[in-house]
């Protein structure tokens, strides 16, 4: 059993989730994910890691409440336990001295881009962080990211903070600041990672995306997380989750991502009569 150190909603629907798991904390690296099960009848889902404390033996993730499993997680309190928390899984994000790296975060990815930005900074890169949200009240961890970023930009859909608009404003925004990144790393929802890959492709900016497909075991055994990269089938859990965004078959990925959409919310409907939501 793994005990919950902290679970709190930091912005609407988005939760910071700290679990005591010393063996995971011991070897976790930026870009890894963990698999968990919220209770004995629950589903196994992957969560990207957003931070850790090796000494305290804790690992932090940010999750958005969308379906049945994340709804169960959102009810957990400090001191509660969950039966499964395993990792770190997946290959870590490649950290090297690239020069200027643009780290793009959105949704839960604002959390998981943080350790990546931090490691890139430690490796001697100029780290440019760009956060995207629908509105300013959905932004979080700006202070943490500001501490590891040389430059921090914000785009909001409604213009309540930073640049108004969509994520595809990246080239303009970087152009105005005179920044030409040597590498772009995106952590966020599928649509955001796809859009960034689309706008950086014509510019020739190498773009790494941290993919988030459906998974069951997370160790290469079931193949549900497969995607096409450069015309070849890859398993996100063991070959990724980082891939070159310009090589991914995004239409296929989006379709596979929706493969169980009805069932993801179905448990919500079934358990609502127990009035625990």
């Amino acid at each position, binding site marked *: 059993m793994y005990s919950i150190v902290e679970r709190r909603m930091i912005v609407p629907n988005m939760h910071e989730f700290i679990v005591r798991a010393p063996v995971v904390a011991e070897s976790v690296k930026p870009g890894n994910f963990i698999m968990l099960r919220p209770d004995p009848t629950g589903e196994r889902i992957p969560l990207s890691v957003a931070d850790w404390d090796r000494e305290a033996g804790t690992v932090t993730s940010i999750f958005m409440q969308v379906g049945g499993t994340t709804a169960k997680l959102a009810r957990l309190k400090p001191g509660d336990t969950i039966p499964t928390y395993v*990792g770190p899984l997946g290959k870590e994000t490649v950290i090297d001295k690239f020069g200027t790296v643009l780290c793009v975060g959105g949704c839960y990815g604002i959390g998981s881009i943080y350790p990546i930005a931090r490691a890139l900074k430690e490796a001697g890169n100029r780290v440019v962080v760009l956060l995207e949200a629908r509105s300013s009240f959905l932004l979080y961890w700006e202070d943490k990211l500001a501490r590891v970023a040389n430059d921090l930009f914000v785009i909001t859909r409604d213009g309540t903070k930073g640049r108004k608009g969509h994520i595809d404003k990246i080239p303009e925004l970087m152009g105005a600041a005179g920044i030409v990144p040597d590498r772009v790393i995106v952590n966020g929802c599928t649509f955001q990672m796809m859009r960034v890959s689309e706008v950086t492709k014509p510019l020739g900016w190498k773009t790494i995306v941290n993919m988030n497909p459906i998974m069951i075991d997370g160790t290469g055994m079931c193949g549900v997380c497969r*995607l096409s990269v450069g015309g070849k089938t890859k398993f996100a859990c063991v070959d990724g989750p980082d891939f070159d965004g310009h090589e991914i078959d995004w239409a296929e990925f989006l379709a596979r991502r929706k493969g169980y959409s009805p069932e993801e919310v179905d448990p919500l409907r079934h358990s609502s009569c127990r009035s625990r939501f």
Partner: protein
Amino acid sequence: MAEEKPEKKKLDLQRRPMPKQNHWERVKNFDEVALGYPVAAAVEEASRCIKCKKPLCNQGCPVGIDIPGFIKCIVEGDFGSGIRKIKKTNALPAICGRVCPQEEQCEKTCILGNKQAPVAIGRLERFLADWEAAEGKIEVPDMAPKTGKKVAVIGAGPAGITVANDLIILGHEVTIFEALHECGGVLIYGIPEFRLPKAIVNREVNYVRSLGVKIYTDFVVGKTRTVNRLLEEFDAVFVGSGAGLPWFMEIPGENLNGVYSANEYLTRVNLMKGFRFPEYDTPVKRPSRVAVVGGGNVAMDSARTAVRLGADEVHLVYRRSKAELPARVEEVENAEEEGVIFDLLNLPVRLIGDENGWIKEIECLRMELGAPDESGRRKPVPIQGSNYRVSFDAIVMAIGNGPNPLIQMTTPGLDINKKGGLATDPATGRTSRPNIWAGGDIVRGAATVISAMGDGRIAAASIHRYLMNREGEAPVT
């Protein structure tokens, strides 16, 4: 005085049938199909044994069970001694009695088989194991004094459990690291409830735990900690991480929604209990027309699972003919009884989806049998221009698994064999590194439960000799 001639017993050629759930009932549930021999049938079946002077049956057993010995005990009604004889060399009798391919092993070499039906050795093994469990007093074997040596076992599947069982009895401290949240490996995630109830797997895992084996679940060796890191704490490591890498056919359309690896399909149902959705959260689709591609036991398990999930039509698409099906005859018969339609001599060449990325149709080529290939089976040859399309809502790819690559990727110095698994010395199970052994599907690719257990037995003996600094000695038999 002339010696009295023993009365010659007439050969009993009739094998006692295995009581089974009726097929019209069992297709609606996930309960075990084969119900097990009642006492009378077990004694009668055991009495068919002709007590050969030089029995061959035990030579057919990969773990060398004293088969004539335990059969004799059943005839005499001494079931307690019978199960003790089995457990000397087999820690998992209730499992082996159910899923071993006995017709290829012990029962194949049974002399009675030359006349007609061999003694139902597997069913008798199961009988004793179930009898012991029902009696409720599981005996613990004699344990050797503690040696102070520590062994790490990676994977709580059949190979790992066997190694753990053997080494703990020999006095070593054994710790198993299991990646999933439950122990059993393929016995838990792969083989369905209706063929091997999970309560039985848990029972046998708990038995090994009761001997003092420590088990850590949710621990992915190679990721959580590397093998090298484990070797800082342990004197030897056994790798039994299994064939957890599903193969696909590499034909167009395999990444459409509704196309599953058998591993995904079966894991959703078995490990995650998707058949009890929404009581359990993990969903599994319940399509009405399912095609399972493949002809092995995993294909049969997938097809029979689809039947139980309420499919109207389940087809098994296999490129060779019925004679070449690698699945056990018993499983093929069960699948046929349950209404699975066998589309033999058919090769899928393309999967076609709808506008939303869901599977709609499968395109196949018809095949005919040509000359025998390297496996000795007649090679299927496509009939040119015989392409046709059929509509399906789901395709399950059950064409095999390769060894899981996580250990190889993260452990330097391990030689790889032709199948992509760990290369080992077959006589000892030792890898190219002196303190690492391996066995089961991580070495063989997808094989059988009992061959994994046989590997585990061999490796355990070698690890024991190594730990006791007696590696040069001949194996203890």
